[in-house]
């Protein structure tokens, strides 16, 4: 039995030293190839979001060439929007493919599943979209970065806008699942006026006639909604059909470059909250948008922009270290500097390694070339720090 003792001791030591494990460099850190795993939802009804993000990352990689001056290998996997599947794929990326960075995913529940398998092995995880509150607050992790936002922020933008407009009576509607509930809570964080009605719809619901009837009957000052993907497409078209266009349509993740190709004219003039829009006026953005248009014949959305920035972030940090990824503290410090030109202009990381950035009111417009996009209207928050950052203490 004695031969088991060292094993048990080793296991105990590992368990006790779990936080210290994060300091170890993965085996791949020493070789001269930069390996990056992309985890995105590339099938199913939400595939359009993952495709935008993958395209955005690949676009930056193509434009830069060798990321960080190293030979770069990018492995793309489809999480199928299934957390269990994503966790398996993330473990494969880390253990078998020995990636240096994992980038993705789109959905918060997927991020929850891959966070631990990736960060605990010492590999860096960069979220380009999902930003759940726990990872921004108490569960912040030195190996986790987000180039997107904290999930509540875009909803808070719309709440602040509704407040500033002096609305007294806003109708709230979201799908009945965690992100939907968080969305309405986020809106109410920055809105103190009255609520005309609060409706949770079935996730995946496609006919909104009952909800639209309630909106028509209550005649609220405005509607605020969160209906990502196909739900948003249907809601926007039916809202327009029902003749409710005179009631302002405020939303987050509902009217954007992934749904506008389907809703087209029906969404024109609808308002959203975002950290960026394709017509932001700076050189880095002009280059990004025109390159994306050339490559894909479509207007990039925030999903593409945030993934594009993740590639730029990796490039800048690895370049700074001359490709030597073995000193993990130095790598994290180089990433935290965020020394690159983001298409959104102002960009830096806060203590929780989430962006401190500006947020805007955006409006859906038709472009001169017949495509559709969101367009900046006004800045709502300047250098906005998410409300959870205060709970984060990095070890």
């Amino acid at each position, binding site marked *: 039995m004695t031969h088991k003792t060292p094993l048990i001791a080793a296991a105990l030591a590992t368990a006790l030293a779990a936080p210290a494990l994060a300091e170890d460099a993965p085996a791949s850190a020493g070789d001269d190839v930069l390996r990056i795993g992309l985890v995105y939802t590339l099938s199913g009804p939400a595939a359009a979001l993952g495709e935008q993000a993958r395209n955005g990352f690949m676009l930056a990689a193509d434009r830069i060439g060798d990321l960080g001056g190293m030979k770069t290998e990018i492995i793309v996997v489809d999480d199928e929007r299934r957390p269990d599947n994503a966790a398996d794929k993330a473990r494969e990326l880390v253990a078998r493919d020995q990636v240096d960075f994992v980038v993705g995913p789109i959905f918060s529940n997927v991020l929850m599943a891959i966070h631990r398998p990736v960060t605990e092995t010492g590999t860096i995880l960069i979220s380009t979209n999902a930003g759940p509150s726990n990872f921004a607050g108490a569960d912040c992790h030195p190996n986790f970065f987000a180039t997107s936002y904290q999930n509540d922020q875009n909803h808070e933008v719309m709440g602040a806008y509704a407040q500033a407009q002096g609305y007294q009576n806003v109708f709230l509607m979201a799908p009945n699942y965690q992100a939907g509930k968080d969305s309405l809570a986020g809106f109410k964080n920055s809105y103190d006026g009255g609520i005309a009605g609060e409706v949770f719809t079935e996730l995946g619901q*496609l*006919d909104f006639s009952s909800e639209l*009837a309630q909106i028509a009957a209550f005649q609220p000052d405005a509607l605020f909604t969160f209906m990502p993907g*196909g739900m948003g497409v249907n809601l926007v078209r039916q809202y327009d059909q029902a003749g409710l266009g005179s009631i302002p349509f405020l939303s987050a993740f509902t009217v954007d470059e992934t749904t506008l190709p389907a809703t087209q004219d029906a969404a024109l003039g609808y308002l959203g909250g975002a950290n960026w829009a394709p017509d932001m006026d700076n050189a880095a953005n002009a280059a990004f948008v025109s390159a994306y248009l050339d490559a894909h014949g479509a207007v990039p959305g925030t999903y593409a922009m945030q993934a594009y920035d993740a590639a730029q972030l990796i490039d800048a940090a690895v370049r700074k270290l001359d490709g030597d990824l073995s000193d993990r503290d130095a790598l994290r410090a180089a990433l935290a500097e965020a020394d690159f030109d983001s298409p959104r202009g102002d960009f830096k990381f806060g203590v929780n390694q989430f962006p401190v950035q500006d947020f805007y009111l955006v409006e859906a417009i038709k472009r001169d070339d017949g495509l559709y996009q969101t367009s900046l209207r006004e800045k709502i928050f300047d250098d906005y720090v998410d409300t959870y950052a205060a709970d984060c203490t990095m070890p």
Partner: protein
Amino acid sequence: MTNLLVLQLLNGLQLGVLLFLIAAGLTLVFGIMDVVNLAHGVLYMVGGYLTASFAALTGSFWLGLGLMIPAAALIGLVLEYVVIRRLYERSHLDQVLATFGLVMIANETVKIIWGTAPIGVPMPELLDGSIPLMGPLKYPVYRLAIIAAGLAVAVGLYVMVNHTRLGMLLRAGATHRNIVAALGVPIGRLFAIVFMLGTVMACFAGGIVAPILSVDTGMGESVLILTFVVVVIGGIGSVKGAFFGAILVALVDTVGGVFGPIAMRAVLDPAAAGQAGRTLAPMLVYILMAAILFARPQGLFGARS
């Protein structure tokens, strides 16, 4: 509150005629051919996809809908000849297995041909927009058109079932199938016609909702359960039952779904009422079904129990 009631009654009517279009075929196939067809919802989906494709191809929704009808009839005939015909003598369990297989084959085929992203169908210009009802209320013209189209089909079906020779055979087949066969009616041909008719109506329903719902792979399953509820409530094999069952189910679903939580707010605090209302609203239809089956096990207009 009256405003909301008026709008919800219209919404209920619109959902009702849609359910009727699907349920009419299902009840005939079930009642006359004695086939449990789980793939009936798939036909609704295929109708949506065909309309979307033909509309995109021709640039006109009307042409798309027009081209879809003969294509749907052909699909119905082929499906009956290749699969359904082999199931007449088999048990209901075999039929459920075979038609469930069809559901999976059809869903995958649709994914391969059209992809997984929902497909939008442009609203026909003629029916775009909304008309004022009363006060600030407006109602989409297109949904009114769906109600009109559904009622027109119902009237046409009524005339056919009650005043034509084919209708006579259908009525006889629903109640006394063996006698009809014994009298020398070519029952195989009658079955093929019934199945084709059901297919065309389900596809038509899928086609006309395409501009409001956009077409996607799960749409068949989402209506199938409700359609079976309609058939059971109305009475298996009865087209009249399918009509009144569909309207009843749809009204309970839309009006109850909104007014249930409102009524509950009178007795509970708002948060609890909202939660309870959300939970109870989807159950209303099934409670209705249980109550009707308790009072009339053969359904409202069913001949056989």
